[in-house]
C-alpha cells in the first residue's frame, strides 16, 4: 500500500478532530448559531483520525514539537523528547542560578522561562533573506530571494541542530550543548547568529543578480 505523504487521501467530507477541551465543555445555551451548525455537521460527517503528535495538554507547543521531530533520528521519538525536556530543564537551572545570585536591581532583566528563551532564540536565528541558485547561460548564480515563514523557521532550527551535532566536544551531551547555544542565540551572540549574518552579507554582495528572480 502506498501511504500518502504530502496530499491527503481522505475524502473531502471528513472533518478535522477537535482537541481543545474548552470547546467540548461549553453548555448548549452559550453556543452561537454557527457553532450549533458545526455541532450538527459533526454528528453526521465522519472525522479524520487524530495524529499521534496532536495533544490536548495545556503544556504542548507546536514549535517545540517541530524541533523535537527534527532532532529525532530513525524514529526514536522517546529519546528526542527526553533530550528536549533535559535541554529545557538545563536552561531553567542555569538561569535560576544566575537569578538567585544576581543583585536585586538586575533580577527583573534575567529571563527564567525556558519557553520564552527558546522562542526568542529561534526568532533571533531566522534569516530575513535567502539565496537560491539559478542557472543562466551555463553559469549558476546565487540570487537573493525572499523566504517564506516556514522556510525561515526550518532554516533556524536546522542550523541550531547541525551546530550542536557537529561543533561539540566528544564528551559533552546534546542537552548541555543545546542549552548553551540557545542561551547564546537569545542574547544575539554565538555561531548560529554569525551564520545568519554571513548569509545576509552574501545576499547583499549578490544584489546585482536580484533581477534574475522571476517570482
Amino acid at each position, binding site marked *: 500500500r502506498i501511504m500518502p505523504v504530502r496530499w491527503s487521501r481522505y475524502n473531502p467530507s471528513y472533518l478535522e478532530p477537535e482537541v481543545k477541551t474548552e470547546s467540548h465543555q461549553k453548555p448548549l445555551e452559550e453556543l452561537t448559531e454557527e457553532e450549533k451548525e458545526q455541532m450538527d455537521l459533526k454528528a453526521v460527517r465522519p472525522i479524520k483520525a487524530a495524529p499521534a503528535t496532536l495533544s490536548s495538554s495545556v503544556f504542548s507547543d507546536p514549535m517545540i514539537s517541530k524541533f523535537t521531530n527534527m532532532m529525532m533520528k530513525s524514529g526514536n521519538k522517546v529519546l528526542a523528547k527526553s533530550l528536549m*525536556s*533535559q535541554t*529545557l*530543564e538545563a536552561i*531553567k*537551572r542555569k538561569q*535560576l*542560578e544566575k537569578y*538567585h545570585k544576581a543583585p536585586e536591581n538586575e533580577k527583573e532583566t534575567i529571563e527564567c522561562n*525556558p519557553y520564552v528563551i527558546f522562542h526568542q532564540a529561534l526568532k533571533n536565528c531566522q534569516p530575513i533573506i535567502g539565496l537560491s541558485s539559478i542557472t543562466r547561460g551555463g553559469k549558476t548564480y546565487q540570487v537573493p530571494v525572499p523566504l517564506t515563514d516556514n522556510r525561515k523557521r526550518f532554516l533556524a532550527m536546522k542550523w541550531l541542530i547541525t551546530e550542536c551535532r557537529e561543533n561539540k566536544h566528544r564528551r559533552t551531551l546534546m542537552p548541555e550543548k543545546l542549552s548553551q547555544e540557545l542561551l547564546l542565540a537569545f542574547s544575539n551572540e554565538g555561531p548560529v547568529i554569525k551564520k545568519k549574518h554571513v548569509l545576509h552579507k552574501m545576499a547583499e554582495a549578490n544584489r546585482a543578480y536580484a533581477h534574475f528572480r522571476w517570482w
Partner: protein
Amino acid sequence: QLDRGCALHTAARGGLSSVCSQDVPAERPRAVFHTSESDPAKHTEQHEGRLYNIPLEEVKAVFPHGLPYRFQQQIRTFNEARVMVRRPALELLACLKGSNLAHPAVRYVIYGERGTGKTMTLCHVVHYCSRQGWLVLHIPDAHLWVKNCKELLQSSYKKDRLDQPLQASVWLKNFKSSNERFLQEIKTQKKYMWGKQESTEEGRPLGEVVEQGLARVRSASDAVGVVLRELKQQSHRGSFRLLVAVDGVNALWGRTSLRKEDKSPVSPEELTLVHNLRKMVRNDWSGGAIVTTLSQTGSLFRPSLAYTPQELLGKEGFDALDPFVPIPVPNYSPKEFESCYGYYLERKWLQHEKAHTEDGKAELQFLSGSNPRQLDRLAGPL
C-alpha cells in the same frame, strides 16, 4: 550544631511543648506549606505535609553521601535544602523516640513502589539521629557494592573472600567526615594486624583504623570490617547510640553481577563488605536501631514491578531480617501534593504560564499519579 540529646523524648503528643503556634500563617502565605521547625525531634502530625529547612552546613556535615542525585541538584539550584515531613517518617521517629536501648536493636524496613520517597524518609531519620547525637552508620546504596566493581582483590584475611578497595575507601572517607567526634572517643579492644609489619594496638582510637584503611587502600575492606565489629561490641555500654542506616538492603541477599577471574559468578557472601554488613544487620546487639530501605531501581535480577519485602529480599533475606517492622511509603496525599506544588511555584521552578492555572495543576496531578519522582521529572522542563 549537633548537640548531644540528654533524655529520651516520649511519644506523648501532649507532653511535647511544640512550637506549632509559630506556624500559624501570620505574615506571609509562605508559611502555609513551610515550617520553621528545623529540628526533626519536634516534628509532629501538625507538621505533616510541610517542608522543613536543613541549613546547608548541616547538609554537608550530616550527608556527605546518601542524598538522591536529583535532590542534590535541587539544593544547588534553590540554594536551600527542604525536606517534606511525611507520615511514615513521623511513625518511625515516634518508634525511635520510644525505643528501649537496653533491648536488642529493632529492625525497620521501609518499602514502597518506585519513586515514593523511601530514601528521603531514611535521610529524615538520619538527620534526626545525628541531631540527637547518635553515631550514624549510613550506607548510601548497598547495590553499589555488588555491581560495577572494577577491582576485586583476594582477601588476605580469609582465603575465599574478595575485597573491594575502591568502594571501601570511598565509604571510609565519607564515614570519617560525618562522624569525626566519635572516632576520637571510641577505643579498639583488640590488636589488629594489617599485613606483616603494620598493626593497631589495643586501646587506640578508632580514627587510626580509619586512617589506616584510607592510607593503605588494599586493606580498606578489612578496616571497614574492624570498624563495624568494634561499634557492634561497644554499643551496648551506652556511651553512644548507634544507628545503622542501609539503603537498598535487598542487595545483601540477592545475586551480584561480578565475576571472578575464571568467569565464575560471585555470590554476595564471598565479598568482605557484604559479609560484615550482614553481621551488622543481625539483631544480636543492643544500644541502637537498624533502619533499612528496599530498592528495586538498583537491584539485580529482580522484576521491575516488585516492591514488597517478600519479592525483593527473597527467602534468604526475609529469614535473615525477620522479625522487622515494615513501614510502607505511599504516594503523595492531596495535601502533600498541594504543598509540593506550592513550593515549586514559590521557588519559581514551574515557569510555564499554564502551570500556574488550575488546569495545569490538575494535569500535573493526573500525569504524575501523585508520585513524587514523576512529579519532579514532569516539573523539570515546565
